[in-house]
């Protein structure tokens, strides 16, 4: 019951994306925003929706420890399920947890061959096969296009979709398409781009790429108190 309701609420479709998973197999998506606006919160909510649909999510963090990433999931899930019965929501949490795997690397220690080695360890032993991968903390101005091309190959090889967080800087004014200069050299590799933009007290979720042309802009917001996605009223 609770699961059904939460799944039905998957709000990103409101941005004008048609596919249920938003990204095609082997595709790339990114959430762009300044530091502290809610990139991780948004991706974790997308991950939670995938987990509730029994689609395994691999969360790769290059910044935070496993325990901290776990807290993101725990908090957001419990906020999402706050209005439901606690016994039922705890049960659901236990059920969906098996669809999540957290991997953390130090930024300097992260490489695609290393990630593939870890993935093979998991897949060969039938421990975990991700449907969606989240990579949080990759530095796009430093990581060359080469790394992304390798990741794209990996995504195709293992039939995964990869979401990235992209940290944009306040001192760097966006180009006409809304993208920061430091991201332009890789933007063509992405199927979907979503931006979080703070306007006053509100944080708007805007589709920059991949949405249908008639999609409504400013349809979605991040609630600044809970970081949960909500619809514009």
């Amino acid at each position: 019951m609770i699961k059904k309701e939460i799944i039905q609420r998957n709000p990103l479709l409101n941005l004008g994306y048609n596919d249920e998973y938003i990204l095609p197999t082997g595709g790339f998506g990114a959430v762009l925003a300044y530091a502290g606006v809610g990139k991780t919160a948004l991706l974790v909510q997308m991950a939670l929706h995938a987990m509730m649909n029994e689609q395994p999510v691999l969360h790769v963090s290059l910044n935070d420890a496993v325990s901290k990433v776990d807290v993101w999931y725990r908090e957001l899930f419990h906020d999402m399920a706050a209005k439901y019965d606690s016994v039922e929501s705890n049960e659901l949490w236990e059920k969906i947890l098996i669809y999540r795997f957290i991997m953390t690397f130090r930024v300097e220690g992260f490489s695609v061959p290393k990630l593939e080695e870890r993935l093979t360890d998991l897949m060969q032993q039938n421990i975990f096969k991700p449907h969606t991968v989240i990579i949080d903390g990759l530095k796009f101005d430093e990581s060359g296009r080469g790394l992304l091309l390798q990741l794209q190959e990996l995504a195709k090889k293992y039939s995964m979709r990869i979401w990235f967080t992209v940290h944009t800087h306040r001192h760097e004014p966006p180009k006409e398409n809304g993208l920061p200069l430091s991201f332009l050299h890789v933007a063509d590799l992405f199927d979907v781009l979503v931006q979080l933009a703070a306007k006053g007290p509100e944080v708007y979720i805007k589709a920059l790429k991949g949405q249908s042309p008639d999609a409504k802009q400013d349809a979605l917001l991040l609630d600044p108190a809970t970081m949960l996605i909500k619809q514009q009223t």
Partner: protein
Amino acid sequence: MKFDDQKIRNIGISAHIDSGKTTLSERILFYTKRIHAIHDVKGKDGVGATMDSMDLEKERGITIASAATYCEWKGYEINIIDTPGHVDFTIEVERSLRVLDSAILVLCSVGGVQSQSITVDQQMKRYKVPCIAFINKCDRSGANPFRVIAQLRTKLGHNAVAMQIPIGLETELQGVVDLVTMKAMYFDGDSGEDVRIEAIPQSLLEEANAKREELIDAASIFSDELTEAILEEKEITPELLYAAVRKGTLKREITPVYMGSAYKNKAVQPLLDGVTYLLPKPSEVENIALDMNNNEEPVILNSDPEKPIIALAFKLEDGQYGQLTYIRVYQGTVEKGSTIVNVRNGKKVKVGRVVRMHADQMEDVEALCSGYIGALFGIECSSGDTFVSPGINMTMTSMFVPKPVISLAIVPKDNKSQMAMSKALNRFSKEDPTFKTHVDPETNETIIEGMGELHLDIYVERMKREYNAEVTTGNPRVAYRETITQRADFNYTHRKQTGGSGQFGRIAGYIEPISDAEFVFENKIFGGSIPTQYIAACEKGFKQSMAKGPKLEFPITGVKVLINDGASHAVDSSDMAFQAAARGAFREAYLRAKPVVHEPIMKVVVESPVEFQGPVMGLLNQRRGMIIGSQDEGVMCVIESQVPLAEMFGFSTILRSATQGKAQFTMEFAMYRQVPQSIAEKIALEAAQNKKTAA
């Protein structure tokens, strides 16, 4: 007895298993002249370290029970509690942190911040204990104290700053450079007792200057005088620098880091200096008691020896002269011959002998004043009790005691052992709140319960050694629980007419699952269908039913009972009748409420070289483990998982053989979770067989 609070330090020594805490304590005792010879933890002389006073601790090379001691260093009195490193004994760590004012966090220069260091650090945070770090084992191959400092920052979030740099590392370790005085320190003599101070070697001067800059920079945030001295390019005196670092340390906003090798007798004395310079005196620490007369309103205590007594009993030991009660005095003075009151039961007791402890030896004193840690003789109490002056009704905040998750049946070999065993069990359960014992009414076996395999193992060994109680043990049993998953109604009538006055009681209502309590009883009867005087009997009957599930006989938790109707009889109704009716009603509803079995799930953290990451994950997976994640740490990786306790027996041997002995793990209770259907069926079968055997 001196009453100079200024010069008292109550410290704990906490760390990961095998980081060398006990060796460090031994060196501290030696340099403060409390002992005259050093005995190592697993030393060839077979004596064992002084702080590991139990034979078993000496043999296994691990600390089991905290030992309290005090020593003097340059006019300061330092009370030290040596705490166990193994997570099964975590209650000892928690208890000591509760009574201490500050701590030394010992880290291995090779292993760095390990899983247990994280647990200990969380405990320190919970009790707001300021600490300094000591990076030990700098003589080991692969030692890298600056990597450990970086880990302190990234993994534990400490603002760690080096107070020293090493002179040489690994086998070349010669001493340390003190970044405050900018002098090199060497440790001569057979046991490093002669500190030789010299100029910094030329080769290290540049590094020392750079690290001192970092130290000054970090400390300047806490002192305007220091910032001023920096801006005006005045000389930065050691006093100025220590004062700034001390301020930050007390606020837990800076962690000063010392380094050396306790085993090789290098740089323990500067650490002691650090304890006296940087850690708080008792009156600088805020301690809170709860006022029982004022709705448990928190009251900040005043560390004044003249005020009424407030002291906490944090550890009990049964010594050769009777029960020894370790206490920490927070306020007032506990004097020989004075009267104190145990807040828990209101009993007045007269203080007999008052002693200061030095591992298993003691020293008689006249009084213990606020800020001191010592022990009392002949006081009957439990661990965690608060003692106060007559007329005061305050209690120290209660300590969190986790519930046991594993049990073991023990059978004495003969009558003599039977007597000795009950004596031992009585003592152990009084000393350790996480150790429980009871007799199974069906099998008549004595069951001991605790926090892990090792925890129970140690107690069985102690029974043999200290009490000559020869016992055989059964297989460890996991503490399963039952709970319900859906609401079920009941409407049950208990009626008995067998001559004489009969029994009658009817109860109606429902049971439903709840997640945040073990048992809730709600009375929604209006109009007196069950007279008020029988409501308590109804509750008692339901509570009795919770002790054992009707089918699998595990304790039941997470049930709310609501009664909303019933009936009584003017003559035949009684407390007994309504208790029986409640039991019947529970039985009636329970099976319809879809009961399930829950099992204890442990948080298992494995640290392994990366090349074994795959096999380790495989091992955890085979044990029904759910891997939460893996953390890459360069050559090592940390795998965090949740594994049912039932699958963890013998895991250490399997892990060792799968990783050539290079991986280690820690395990602690995380939660209860429903067992999968196939396992539940197996458990049901086993329970049925046990029942048959018992019959």
